[in-house]
C-alpha cells in the first residue's frame, strides 16, 4: 500500500517558520528577490524595492559596457495572461551605473548585478567592474530572447555557456549566477554546463519568445515585432525548468517566472528552488509584492508545520 499522502510533519509547536535563506554565501532575510529589468535601473528604485517592497534581495537591470537605448515603443504591453516586452536591454552603461549601485548598496539587502555582453571577455570586464562597484554577486543574462547577439543566442549553447561562466569565475571573487532560458530542448543540460564551469547558482527562467499581432491593424504591436512573455502564463514552464535543473545540478537554483503569490513561490521551492525572483508580479500586486509573498510563504509553512525553508526545497522531487 501507498503511504505518501501526508508528507507534512504537522507539528503544531512550530510557531513561526524561518524563511531566511543563504545562497552561495549570500544571506537573504526572505526568499524573494526583484527580477532583473523591472524597475531596477536606478539606485533609488532598487532601494525602494528593498525598503518599501520588502524584497530579500534585488537584481539590477541588465547592464552592458555601453549605454543602449533599447528597442523603440511599443516595447511592453499587457496580454491576458502575462506581459509581453521587448525592451531590448536599454541601460546607461557600466560607467554611469556605478553611482546607481552605490545608492542601492546603502541598504542591508544583497544587491545582485545583472550583466549582458556578447563575449566571455566582455562579461568578465563587466563583472569585475560590478565587483569594484560593490555588487554582492553578478547574474549573467544568458537568456534575453529578443536582443540579437546577446542572451539566448549564447545561452542555448552549453559550450559557450561554460566558456563565459568559466571566464567570469576567473575574474571575480563574488558569486556568479547564470540566468537561463527555457527555449532549449534540455535546460538541465545547460545548467550542468554552468555548474561544471564553476557557476554558483542557476537562475531560471527568463521570458519565453512571444508575439502579439493586432488583428485590427494587421501589424505586430511591439516595435521589435518579437518579444518575451512573462507573468502567470509562463509559471508552469518555469516550474518545469527548475524541476529539471534540480535533477541535474547541486548548486542552488533561483526560480523566476509568474510568481505573484506565496503559493507560486512554494511551488518553485518544492520544485527545487532556494529562492524566487519576481518581475511581472510587481505589476500584478504592487511593489510590496515581496512582502506579501513572504507573508504568504510564512503562513503556508506555519499552517503545514514547516520550520524552515530547507524542509521544503525540492520536496516534490522525492
Amino acid at each position, binding site marked *: 500500500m501507498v503511504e505518501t499522502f501526508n508528507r507534512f510533519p504537522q507539528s503544531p509547536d512550530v510557531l513561526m517558520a524561518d524563511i531566511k535563506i543563504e545562497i552561495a554565501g549570500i544571506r537573504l532575510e526572505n526568499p524573494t528577490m526583484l527580477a532583473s*529589468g*523591472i*524597475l*531596477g*535601473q*536606478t539606485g*533609488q*528604485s532598487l*532601494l*525602494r524595492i528593498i525598503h518599501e517592497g520588502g524584497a530579500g534581495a534585488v537584481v539590477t*537591470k541588465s547592464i552592458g559596457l555601453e*549605454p*543602449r*537605448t*533599447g528597442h*523603440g*515603443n*511599443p*516595447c*511592453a*504591453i*499587457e496580454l491576458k495572461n502575462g*506581459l509581453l*516586452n521587448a*525592451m531590448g536591454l*536599454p*541601460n*546607461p*552603461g557600466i560607467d*554611469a551605473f556605478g553611482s546607481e549601485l552605490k545608492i542601492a548598496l546603502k541598504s542591508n539587502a544583497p544587491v545582485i548585478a545583472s550583466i549582458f555582453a556578447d563575449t566571455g571577455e566582455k562579461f568578465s570586464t563587466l563583472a569585475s567592474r560590478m565587483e569594484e562597484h560593490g555588487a554582492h554577486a553578478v547574474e549573467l543574462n544568458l537568456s534575453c530572447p529578443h536582443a540579437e547577439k546577446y542572451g539566448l543566442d549564447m545561452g542555448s549553447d552549453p559550450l559557450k555557456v561554460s566558456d563565459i561562466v568559466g571566464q567570469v569565475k576567473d575574474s571575480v571573487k563574488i558569486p556568479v549566477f547564470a540566468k537561463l532560458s527555457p527555449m532549449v530542448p534540455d535546460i538541465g543540460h545547460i545548467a550542468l554546463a554552468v555548474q561544471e564551469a564553476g557557476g554558483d547558482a542557476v537562475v531560471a527562467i527568463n521570458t519565453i519568445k512571444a508575439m*502579439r499581432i*493586432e488583428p*485590427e*491593424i494587421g*501589424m505586430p*504591436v511591439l*516595435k521589435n515585432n518579437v518579444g518575451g512573455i512573462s507573468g502567470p502564463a509562463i509559471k508552469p514552464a518555469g516550474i518545469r525548468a527548475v524541476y529539471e535543473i534540480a535533477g541535474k545540478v547541486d548548486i542552488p537554483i533561483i526560480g523566476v517566472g509568474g510568481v505573484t503569490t506565496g503559493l507560486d513561490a512554494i511551488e518553485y521551492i518544492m520544485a527545487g528552488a532556494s529562492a524566487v525572483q519576481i*518581475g*511581472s508580479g*510587481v*505589476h500584478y500586486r504592487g511593489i510590496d509584492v515581496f512582502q506579501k509573498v513572504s507573508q504568504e510563504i510564512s503562513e503556508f509553512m506555519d499552517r503545514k508545520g514547516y520550520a524552515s525553508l530547507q524542509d521544503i526545497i525540492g520536496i516534490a522531487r522525492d
Partner: protein
Amino acid sequence: MQVVDITDSINESDNIKTIKFKWPAESKPGQFIMVWIPGVDEIPMSLSYSDGITVDSVGEATQAIHALEKGSQIGIKGPYGNGFDLSGNDFLLIGGGTGIAALAMAAENLSQAGKKIRIAIGARTASDLLFVERMKALGEVHIATDDGSSGHHGFITQVAEKLITVKKPDMILACGPEPMMASAVKLAHKIPIQCSLERHMKCGFGICGSCQCGKFTVCKDGPVFSGEQLGQMEDFGKWKRDSSGKSVWF
C-alpha cells in the same frame, strides 16, 4: 491595448491639434494614455478630453498623430497614472504650453462641483495659447506669453504669483515645462500643490523603470505628485533620464 477609430481632428493652433476617438473607457482628470501610432511609435499623452488628446507636433510620432484622419485607427493603453486629487475648494491652475491639456478636465470637474477656480495659461506666443475659450467658461482666466503678444509679457509663474498674493488658493495644480513647475512649487510655499510630470516613458504601467524620478515612477506613482513628494526627488526640476536611463540636465 485597445484599437480605436479616430472620430475627429481639430486644429487648435498652427502646431497643435486635438484628436478625438471612439473610446468608452472611464478616466480621471490628470490621467494619461499610451498612444500607439502603428508603424511609428507609442507615446504618452494626457487626456485633454475623456475621449481626446491635444498634441503639439514636435517630432515623428506627434507629426504622425497630426496626419491621422477620421477613420484612421490607433492603439490605446490606459488610462494610466493617478490623476489629480481634487479635494479643496479654491483652486489655482497653472498650465504652460500643452500643460493646460492635462489640466482641462480637472478644471471642468472642479467647475461642475461648484468650486472656485482661477486658471493661468501661458504660452510662447498668442497663437499658441490653448483652451482659452474652454477655460473661460469655467473660471477666471489669466494669460501670459513669452513675447507679450497676449496677456502678461513674461512667465506664467509671475502671473500665478500675483494671483496668490491677491488671494491664497487652497490648492494649486500645475502642468508645463519642469522648470516652470519647479518655480511654481517654490512660490506655492506652504499652499498645497500638485504637479503633473513628464518623463521618458516606455511601458507606461510601472514595470520598466524608464520614467523613474527620484524613487517614484512617473507613469504609475504619478504623473501627478504633491509638493511633498516633489521635495523628495533630487532630480525634480534638475535632470531627467534619456531612453538608456542616463541622466540628462534640463
